[in-house]
Each structure stands twice: as structure tokens, then as C-alpha cells.
């Protein structure tokens, strides 16, 4: 059996839910709070949470450069706050965070919590009936040439892939549907076993 090791960044947010979603996909899972915990991992998930909080803790514990380094050849999957952390450009903000993906993102783009919603999504190559849970969610306003748009809602880009990077504005980890996680696991396997 070929098992890949996937880490979930556990500084803050819904990291246990991601770990639970991955458990169903035949992977080895670990929670990453410190740099050395990236060692030996084949992929990394950056969960939903508060992007400002996670960024501060990344800086403080030298995870910022370490994750950028890790991401050079290892797959990364970010949801919601994770998407914001991965974007090259953030609306109304001076610089990006990790800047991994060639996307522009707008924070809290659908509004405040009272505007948070659920909607069914068609995710290219993953599912045509996926329950999208959007919580104070961002969306992608522009993508570069190498970025493939995987899902839109109300004409807004809410999921995308660029090479070994995968991102979603919604929270697949809050549903019992692990098809999107399975897609990421396949991306990781594709890199490890080819």
C-alpha cells in the first residue's frame, strides 16, 4: 500500500476537521506547529481560521520561510484563510503572505458573518454537487495564466488549482464529503509516486 504523509498546519483554526477529512483517504496525518514537524511530509494543508493570527504565529516561530521552502516542490492545499495566505495579491493590503499562487483575493468578500452561506457547487473534476460552506469567505478576483479555475459561485471564483497548489474559499472540512480532500491526496500521490 502506498501511503503519503500529509501535515495540517495547527497554529489555529479548523485543523482537526481537516485531519478528520483526510483520515478517510488512506493517508498518514500529522499536525504541524513547529518547523521540524514539516520534515518527511509529502503535502501540507493550511486550514480555515483567522489569517492574521496564523501569519503572526508563522512569523514568530519561523514557519513562514519554512513553508515557502516546503512549497517549492510539495503540494499545498489552503481553505479560506489558507487561500488568503497562499495568494500573491490581497485586495487593500500592501503585501501578500506566502504568495504561492498567482491569484488576487478579496477578504470577507461575500460580507460579514450574517452573510455567510451554504450553496451547492460544481467543482471541475471533483464533484458536481458539492456542499460549499462559505464563512466570512474570500473569493478570487483574478487569476494568472497558469491557474485553472475549478469552481465559481455567483460568477466569483471560489476554487482553483495551479500546478501542485490547490485552494478553496469554502470549507470542505466542515462537511462529511471528502472528495475534495481526495483530490488533494491524488495530487500528493502523483508527485510522490511518479
Amino acid at each position: 500500500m502506498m501511503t503519503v504523509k500529509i501535515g495540517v498546519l495547527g497554529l489555529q483554526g479548523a485543523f482537526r476537521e481537516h485531519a478528520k477529512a483526510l483520515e478517510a483517504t488512506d493517508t498518514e496525518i500529522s499536525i504541524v506547529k513547529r518547523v521540524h514537524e514539516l520534515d518527511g511530509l509529502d503535502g501540507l494543508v493550511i486550514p480555515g481560521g483567522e489569517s492574521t493570527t496564523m501569519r503572526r504565529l508563522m512569523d514568530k516561530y519561523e514557519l513562514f520561510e519554512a513553508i515557502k521552502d516546503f512549497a517549492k516542490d510539495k503540494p499545498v492545499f489552503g481553505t479560506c484563510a489558507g487561500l488568503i495566505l497562499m495568494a500573491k495579491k490581497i485586495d487593500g493590503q500592501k503585501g501578500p503572505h506566502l504568495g504561492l499562487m498567482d491569484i488576487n483575493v478579496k477578504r470577507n468578500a461575500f460580507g460579514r458573518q450574517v452573510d455567510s452561506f451554504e450553496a451547492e457547487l460544481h467543482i471541475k473534476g471533483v464533484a458536481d454537487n458539492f456542499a460549499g460552506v462559505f464563512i466570512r469567505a474570500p473569493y478570487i478576483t483574478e487569476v494568472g495564466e497558469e491557474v485553472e479555475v475549478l469552481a465559481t459561485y455567483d460568477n466569483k471564483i471560489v476554487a482553483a488549482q495551479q500546478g501542485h497548489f490547490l485552494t478553496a474559499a469554502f470549507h470542505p472540512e466542515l462537511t462529511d464529503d471528502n472528495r475534495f480532500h481526495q483530490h488533494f491526496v491524488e495530487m500528493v500521490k502523483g508527485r510522490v509516486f511518479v
Partner: protein
Amino acid sequence: MAQTGTDRVKRGMAEMQKGGVIMDVVNAEQAKIAEEAGAVAVMALERVPADIRAAGGVARMADPTIVEEVMNAVSIPVMAKARIGHITEARVLEAMGVDYIDESEVLTPADDQFHINKSDYTVPFVCGCRNLGEAARRIGEGASMLRTKGEPGTGNIVEAVRHLRLVNAQVRKVVGMSEDELMTEAKELGAPYEILLQIKKEGRLPVVNFAAGGVATPADAALMMQLGADGVFVGSGIFKSENPAKFARSIVEATTHYEDYKLIAELSKGLGTAMKGIEMSTLEPSQLMQERSF
């Protein structure tokens, strides 16, 4: 079609706050300090609990100007408190677009028998609890998040520890019980049967549970995480300390790395004076905020 105000988006919002610190603030300047320190949300108030305690009289929802000022100052979620049972204060806060309402015993209750029917609202609510009976009743009314009460504004962790330990012990008991014992347990706890059944099936509370009421140091925050809290609320502990920015940063880091004791030692060095605490035995029973709920 898009659906707003579902249980999943209301409870999910609290899931995103896990492992984080929610800080009480009374103006934009404090809100920015909290955000920069890494708070996952701020609670906009007119006065922190220690000052409410000192001022006495009736404590109400904050002036909307303060809530608005805080909402405009930060990009993280903003919570605000409504009095227990005060349907209109809650609707006003919802209309203003706050991200979470705390139906809070820190304010003077508006109804001495009934809590708000929180299922009716699009905005999610957090409520206090001292035991599983209270916790389950609040969930039954539609609370999307809980916080163990502790004793607000005291800077004394003892009540917070007692309440969190009790809730978790009672959850463990329910999980370990046979299903045919649950109805009697529901009667004894004063808890809705369906909520206990759900807890038994899932092996845990169906909503996120933070600790509150007495957290004054990084070690206090780490202790609550160690005891199984999903995160912590810090009320008076930050802005009643000598160096709020430093206290705030240290409490955030201690909450994430709550099992790294060497780090907590470092984080606790040279912080200056913590808020002055209150020993529980010096409080009259009528001064206990935790007693306010039904």
C-alpha cells in the same frame, strides 16, 4: 440557492476560531492592539468586566458607536454582548452586522426566566455555561458556541477551571452511559434529551466550547487549553494589565503552544503586573455574575 444562517455556517464560524484568543476591547485603539497581537476576534464592549463590577448598577448593551468604531478598525470578526433575554438588543446588534452575539451574564439580565430563542437569528450566538445542563439548554435554544463562565472580571482562574472540568466530566459521563439511562440523566441535568443523545453519539459537545472568566496570564490560558477548552476569552486580563500588547501576544502564543512549558516560561518573563485579582471568598453571592442564567 444560497442559504444563510444555517447551523453549519453558524457553528462553523466558531470552528474557525478554535485554538485562538478572543479579547475584550472598548475602543478602536484596543481592537487594533488585539488584532496585531493575533486575536482571532474581539468583543466590543463599553467597559471590561472588572470595570462593570466596580461600577455596579445596570450593565447594558454597548453604545452602538463603540461597536461600529471597533468594526471599522479591524478585519477580524467582531462580537458584542446583549443582555440575557433582551431580544431587541440582540436584533439591534444583528442589524448592525456584528459577527457573533454573546448573550452574556456579564450584563444585567433583562429577563429573569427566559433566554433568547437563538435559533430565530441569522447571526450566531455564544452563551455561558457552568455545567452540562446549562450548556445543553443553551444549545437547545440555538447557541452555536459555548464558553464556560468562570467568574468574569476577577482575574481568578479557579471558577473557570471548576466549570470546564465539570462540563467535560459530565460530557464523559453521558458518552459512557447506556442510551436507556439518558432520559433520567436529562431530567437530572435539566438538559434536553435530544442534545444529550447527540453528545453521546458524537462523543463530544456539538458546538465549540471556549473557556472564559478569570484568564489573566499566559499560563492561565494554557491551563484552560490543557483542560480541553477549544480556545479562550480574555476579558479584563489584557487591558487591565500593565503592558496590554505584550500580554496579548504572550497569551495568544501560550494558547497555541499550550504544552510547550519552556516556551510558556519565556512568554511569562518580564510581562509586568497582571490585573489585580479578586479572591472568590471576598465576593458576596449577589456579586457573582455566573449565577445569572436559567
